[in-house]
């Protein structure tokens, strides 16, 4: 591992993020953030605090209004359209999945692989099948997304992002709307990905997978090895490890941990 250059996976210098939907108003300003390879970040914040916008910007899907954002050491402006290979190094799991509604689950998962490597459906099939089995999606391979339960849709979206074996995986509120059992599966699986064990064969070059997760509830994400940050009032506040979360006096952190606030009337 030591011979891998430690170029930050994500690096932001004074970045301002615009809302993707709606007025285009700035949702987060002056973000300074560096994510090293192999780290597991949880970006927490209340609803509409700009978590999704920040994640999409980090993945290079939108451009900053101000400041500079880099992905794998390269400016995002260099990635715009010109270099889809670099884009494929970052996987993104949207909240709700955003699956292609006219394609079956297997076709959804196969499409990025086929497009990226110019494979026919038959050539892509073994790899797709292996991943579907790993995520327990094999029985649903031929089902259209509209007929899937929401948690399976979310899992199919995870499979679609993982088929390209990305070095960075960004997940927008992956636990939203999941039952306790499903949430446990996700937490375990993401941990295994972070440990480099989730995918058979791992990543090319033995690189660790870097994970960034947006969450509006911090409780399930308690884990000593994760890094935490908070989005509130248009600011990005790094909190450090779990001890930093617990010692934070911020009332929003307490809300996200579901600790009752002392009410002063």
């Amino acid at each position: 591992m030591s011979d891998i250059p430690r170029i930050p996976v994500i690096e932001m210098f004074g970045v301002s993020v615009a809302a993707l939907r709606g007025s285009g108003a700035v949702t987060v300003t002056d973000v300074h953030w560096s994510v090293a390879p192999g780290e597991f970040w949880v970006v927490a914040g209340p609803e509409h605090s700009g978590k999704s916008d920040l994640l999409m910007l980090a993945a290079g899907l939108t451009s900053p209004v101000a400041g500079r954002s880099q992905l794998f050491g390269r400016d995002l402006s260099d990635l715009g359209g010109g270099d889809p290979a670099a884009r494929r190094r970052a996987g993104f799991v949207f909240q709700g999945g955003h699956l292609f509604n006219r394609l079956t689950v297997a076709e959804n998962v196969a499409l990025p692989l086929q497009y990226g490597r110019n494979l026919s459906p038959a050539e892509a099939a073994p790899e797709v099948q292996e991943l579907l089995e790993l995520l327990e999606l094999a029985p649903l391979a031929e089902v259209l997304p509209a007929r899937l339960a929401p948690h399976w849709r979310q899992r199919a979206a995870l499979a679609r992002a993982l088929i390209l074996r990305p070095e960075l995986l960004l997940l927008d509120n992956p636990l939203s709307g999941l039952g306790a059992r499903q949430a446990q599966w996700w937490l375990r699986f993401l941990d295994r990905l972070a440990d480099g064990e989730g995918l058979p064969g791992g990543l090319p070059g033995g690189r660790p997978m870097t994970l960034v997760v947006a969450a509006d509830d911090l409780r399930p994400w308690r884990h000593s090895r994760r890094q935490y940050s908070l989005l509130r009032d248009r600011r990005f506040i790094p909190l450090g490890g779990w001890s930093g979360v617990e010692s934070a006096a911020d009332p929003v952190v307490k809300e996200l941990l579901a600790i009752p606030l002392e009410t002063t009337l």
Partner: protein
Amino acid sequence: MQGLGAFALITLGVLLQKINVAPNVLRPRFRQEVARSGVALLPMFGFVALGLGFLVVGQTVAALAKVGAIRYLGTTMVIVVVRELGPLLAAMLVLARVGTANVIELGTARALGEVEALEALGIDPVHYLIVPRVVGMALGVFSLTVYLILGALGSGYLFAFLQDVPLTPGDYFRQITEALSWLDFALLALKTVAFGFFIAIVTCYHGLAQPLRLEEVSRVAVRAVTQGVVVCVFIDALFILLYLLA
């Protein structure tokens, strides 16, 4: 309008630049779109060709025969059916049947975040979603126009024959072929390809170019169809200028 022009140029650029990118994915997409904008419309076009032949061609032949002007038949048919009515009618039918579906499909895909998902997976949405539609529609309008013209001319003669117009099939088709020039073939091909290209551009632009909410999709579809009709009539007017200049 500026946005539309830019979108047309971007699409053309992607079409030419990425002609060899992921052919294994794009080739089936092209087949799908040619089937959707062409083959699937053949029964409807057969019906319309019959109607056009009976109503327009047959009546014109009968009227010309009545006033003793049957020697103008070829010129009249070429101007009415081959140059104007055939291409424009084919374009309008494709706009109505496939163009509206384009706006709704793409608008819904955009509103549900599928376009962002394509980008996140390193797939160029213009290459995957738009280019096949543009090519499919250009080929579709061209071939359907050819079938429509042939069908209308054939069924038109049938109608005239039933009305006892003294005209042999040999004379009828000879007159028409004599009135056709090489320019008609070249401009017919150019015009129908332009119709298909711009119908696809207008409908895809409205479906895709702006972030939409689901409730906006139907309103945008209406606007796209109106604009599609206007664009086709403009292209038609431009081609009349070409005919006059030639």
